[in-house]
């Protein structure tokens, strides 16, 4: 059996390629994100849709409004395929992978900025533009989080890389230096 990530990667890649042919990547992404939001808001929905004891026709009626509201044919079909193969629980992962490949193509970077006090909009903009130059992205979307234990400075987390400029880490480094 395929593991979940490989499965999601394959589906999202296929979807991305067909949508790209149709020039409908952006509308598709918007739809997928709104569908994902529905699943995130109702955690039990995913469970119900893959539950074997839940009657099939009810599953269809549950998913029907989502299919009907969708404008893009391929997204509609994706939902139908997933429902048919009882893989509805993969949807959120597929959407995440889809978003990631979209971001990669368009050089959009999502980053978490962890600071001691909430950042002002101006600070955010400065940080985003500095980060943009560093990683060579077209657009940086910053998400501000607050963590008091840092003492000072900012930590930027983006995909697998951490840019650590916090006072806490610096103090730890000095500690190591003095103890060695």
């Amino acid at each position, binding site marked *: 059996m395929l*593991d979940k990530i490989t499965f999601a990667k394959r589906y999202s890649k296929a979807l991305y390629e067909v949508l790209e042919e149709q020039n409908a990547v952006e509308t598709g992404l918007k739809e997928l994100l709104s569908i994902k939001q529905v699943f995130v808001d109702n955690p039990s929905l995913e469970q119900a849709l893959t539950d074997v004891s839940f009657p099939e026709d009810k599953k269809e009626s549950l998913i029907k409004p989502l299919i009907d509201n969708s404008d893009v044919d391929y997204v509609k079909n994706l939902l139908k395929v997933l429902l048919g193969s009882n893989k509805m629980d993969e949807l959120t992962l597929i959407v995440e992978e889809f978003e990631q490949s979209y971001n990669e193509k368009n050089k959009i970077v999502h980053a978490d900025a962890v600071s001691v006090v909430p950042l002002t909009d101006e600070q955010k903009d400065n940080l985003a533009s500095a980060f943009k130059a560093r990683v060579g992205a077209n657009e940086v979307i910053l998400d501000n989080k607050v963590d008091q234990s840092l003492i000072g400075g900012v930590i930027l987390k983006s*995909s*697998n*890389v951490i840019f650590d*400029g916090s006072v806490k880490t610096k103090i730890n*480094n*000095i500690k190591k*230096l003095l103890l060695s």
Partner: protein
Amino acid sequence: MSINAEEISALIKQQLAGFKDELAVEETGVVTYVGDGVARAHGLDNALSGELLEFENGIYGMAQNLESNDVGIVVLGDCTHIREGATIKRTGKIMEVPVGEDMVGRTINSLGQPIDGKGDIKTENTRPIEKKAPGIMDRQSVSEPLQTGIKSIDALVPIGRGQRELIIGDRKTGKTSIAVDTILNQKDQDMICIYVAIGQKDSTVRSQVATLEKFGAMDYTIVLSAGPSEPAPLLYIAPYAGAAIGEYFMNQGKHVLIVYDDLTKQANAYRELSLILRRPPGREAYPGDIFYTHSRLLERAAKLSDKLGGGSMTALPIVETQAGDVSAYIPTNVISITDGQIFLNSDMFYSGTRPAIDAGTSVSRVGGDAQIKAMKQVAGTLRLDLASYHELQAFAQFGSDLDDATQAKLNRGARTEEVLKQPLHAPLPVEKQVLILFSLTHGFLDKVAVDDIQRYQTELFNFFDASHRDLLDHIISTGKLPDGDDLANAVDEFTKSFVPSKQEETQNN
């Protein structure tokens, strides 16, 4: 002795001078699975194979499997504190161990940390545990002998410095004892010995260390132990860590003897790891690269060219067989990698021939060149004598009707076997080995009763130490037998004065 505040602050300033206010950039991943000494992590996109990775709680891991979605990591330490979802950082370094002179005389673990309670080891250097073995141009052929102090090895399967000689046999046939005796015999030979215990009981290792200490061998020995209670990854890397330490000394032009005790357990540890990492199993469920695991380890034993200092590393890997089956997977692999093997036979061991070295199946492919000339002269016919003795032994049971030649062969064979017996932890210097073998091959022992041979040997050595030390010194200094009949005359002189036990008793009565 007092340090004033100014000195302290000066010291702190000096240390702080090295501090650079840099933005720490770290590549991380998230642990998705942990168990049985193995973890898997998402992320870590740029991780290298064999790279050292650091978990949140300061425990290190080594990247093993680089797959499309995740990285398989072996955890070098306690994996019970690692949780799913924990972050893991790249260090950019590959696995290293500290190396240095201070390690001599110490007992360490696979990571080079002391485990003998004698305090920190101060080392400045580190070496990667996986390193490519010296190439063709970096080597020269094996030419110097490594004296094990065991008669049957030095005479029949001589080992040279830089050779790889496998010690193979069933459990409890004296494999480790041969290795330990060899280490004991390296006293004052300007050798560094490394004993790598892989999966050996901690109590056994403790008693080995006690033996080495008792005979003063810890002055030039490093013991590296990965006990059976350690996680499998530490057992797997132990021999590589030992080899890295050995290479450090070898590259300084020193001579190193390294014992891997034993590679069967290392192979088992690696099999465990590989199966948990979901690598496909092959024969006997070992992974496909088990041969390479051992060949790249043993290839690191070498005799370096004079340009590189002429140092050497001699490897004595040990492999355990089940019921004498040398055609199992690991034994055949290691036999084909090494330059010969010393086969220990459990039947011989239990019948009292100790060390139980089977002369028929034991070989040394390169050691002959390293044997000293005197030994070659006296030991040349030994193997043949033994072989024909074993062949005729079956007939001997019929008793009387044997011609004289057969009778003589049987006599010689029984005495040869008796001479090759040697007690535990009693290595003999080479000149004395030559002496007793000389007496044997020149027929001086033929008239001595088999039961008297051990006593004959001790008294012969005492006699030569007292009256003919010059002849022994001649063998040591020139490596050849003394010219003329001096040696034969001296042995003859002693043999005439030797009083057999039987006669002694009759005289006493």
